[in-house]
């Protein structure tokens, strides 16, 4: 997907100005509330006309004020997944899914209904009404409906913000896999950096109606570490954990990771760990209460606001710790330094669970 957008749109005091060209299958639009994300989405979908400018998607001009082109929403083949599902309440699941499919010209129909319904695990729900579905089911129907319209671009406008954490991270694999499986590029809109990192490669960051950066989602998360109250969020996909003394044990090469995540049945899943919850030691501490003491090598340093991010190579994974520059000077932390990282077992937070405990031998 190649999207070029140079537009301006004013609503009273607020003006959204865009001037970017972006390429890729997984693009993010990041910004806080009031940054202009929703306006941008509406402009792209053809629901709102910009005051001036030009929008070109894969060589097709969607809007051009100079050439007086403004394709109607139904002509753009840009489908949307909305924050609030927006399923048609008078239609059942099957007819919601088929709404866009029936209106898609035959030559563009590449997605098979039965396959999609199976991928999204909707095949058992097809004849049900949509009003009694759970939040996750509704969002899967909304996603399936948009995919079946065979769009050239899928706009996902904060599709996870109406869901609780558990559902959010259950839906993400569907959002990713369906788009990848059917080869449909997407623009993912969110104010969550974690979602951005899980869903996108390239990110366009907006603030107050202006584009303030075009970068990778990982780079954006690092840049914002110092300003964020939660710091940089380390995302850990951990598989094959066992249970010991009420904690989950994950075997890293050369050691083990102990997680106190409340649910001892967790054997694999996605976990988050804030950069603020990692304490660095230059020497091996004699006795500490933290259950995890990881032997790490500093592989990178980056500044963010008044903080210093320390990228650590720990066994098989990498972690980012956050310290103040003064601490780095005192400890002599630089690239290549060897440090010990202490992490409390309770500092991990489970985002999604993929399985249940299996009886397996402890770490060798």
């Amino acid at each position, binding site marked *: 997907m190649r999207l070029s957008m140079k537009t301006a749109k004013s609503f009273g005091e607020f003006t959204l100005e865009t001037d970017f060209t972006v390429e890729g299958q997984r693009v993010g639009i990041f910004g806080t509330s009031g940054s202009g994300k929703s306006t941008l989405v*509406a402009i792209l*979908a*053809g*629901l709102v006309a910009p005051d001036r400018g030009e929008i070109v998607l894969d060589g097709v001009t969607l809007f051009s004020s100079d050439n007086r082109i403004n394709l*109607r*929403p*139904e002509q*753009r*083949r*840009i*489908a*949307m997944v*909305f924050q*609030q599902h*927006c399923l*048609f*309440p*008078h239609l059942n699941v099957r007819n919601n899914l088929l*709404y*866009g499919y029936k*209106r*898609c010209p035959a030559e563009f129909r590449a997605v098979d209904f039965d396959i999609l319904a199976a991928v999204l695990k909707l095949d058992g729900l097809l004849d049900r009404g949509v*009003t009694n579905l759970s939040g996750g089911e509704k969002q899967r129907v909304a996603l399936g*409906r*948009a995919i079946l*319209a065979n769009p050239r671009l899928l*706009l996902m406008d904060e599709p996870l913000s109406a869901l609780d954490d558990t559902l959010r991270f259950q839906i993400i694999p569907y959002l990713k896999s369906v788009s990848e499986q059917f080869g449909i590029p997407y623009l993912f809109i969110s104010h969550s950096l974690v979602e951005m990192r899980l869903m996108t490669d390239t990110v366009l960051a907006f603030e107050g109606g202006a584009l303030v950066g075009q970068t990778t989602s990982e780079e954006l998360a690092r840049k914002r570490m110092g300003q964020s109250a939660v710091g940089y969020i380390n995302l850990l996909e951990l598989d094959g954990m066992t249970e010991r003394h009420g904690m989950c044990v994950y075997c890293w090469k050369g050691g083990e990771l102990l997680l106190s995540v409340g649910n001892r049945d967790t054997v694999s899943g996605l976990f988050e760990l804030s950069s603020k919850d990692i304490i660095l030691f230059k020497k091996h501490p004699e006795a500490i209460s933290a259950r995890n003491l990881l032997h790490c090598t500093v592989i990178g340093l980056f500044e963010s606001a008044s903080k210093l991010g320390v990228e650590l190579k720990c066994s098989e994974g990498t972690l980012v710790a956050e310290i103040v520059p003064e601490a780095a000077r005192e400890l002599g932390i630089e690239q290549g330094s060897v440090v010990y990282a202490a992490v409390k077992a309770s500092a991990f937070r489970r985002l999604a669970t993929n399985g249940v405990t299996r009886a397996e031998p402890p770490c060798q």
Partner: protein
Amino acid sequence: MTPLTPADYDAIRLSLQVSIAATLLSLPFGFAVAYLITFVQFRGKVLLEVLINLPLTMPPVVVGYFLLLLLGRHGWLGSLLDEVGIRLIFTLKAAVIASAVVGFPLLVRSVRIGMEGIDPQLINASRTLGARWPDTLMTVILPLSIPGLVAGSSLMFARSLGEFGATIIVAGNIPGVTQTIPLAIYEYAASPTGESMALSLCLVSVAISVIVLFLHETMAKKAARSD
């Protein structure tokens, strides 16, 4: 209470005919006007709203008088229709028109409230899924307006059943031709011996109204449950 006479049965039949015809004829127009007011931005929208709601605030007799001026043989529209052999005044058609005009604001109001309750994002979803505007109108807006249409229709039907002032001016009070229940009651009430006859028709009128309003409430509750 006195048993109903054949003329009373005629009045009941005519009342139902007028109410049903007025409601059915008004439905497409009511839907269109409600749609215009809800979804289309245009100059003079406030004026249209005022004109639509005017019969609600004016005495029905005034409405009837204006209709007489418009549809009478020397009226602007009446003279045109007269040239092609169509006479409306003092016919059942005039009673239907009078009922339609008086009940129309109630219909539009209910349909409009229903339409305003439609989430605009559903319309946006429909458009981005490839539906043209008329397609969206038929497959999203119309089905979701059904509770409003049902509510408006039943209110309008009930209002038409009770219509008196405008009807008597444009359709007269001709037994078996234009005499509806309210007009028959009026005639009985004006007669020194018609008191019990009037009461019988009043009870019939109350019964029909109760049935209509009961259906209205049932359907409104059903619509609310399906939301």
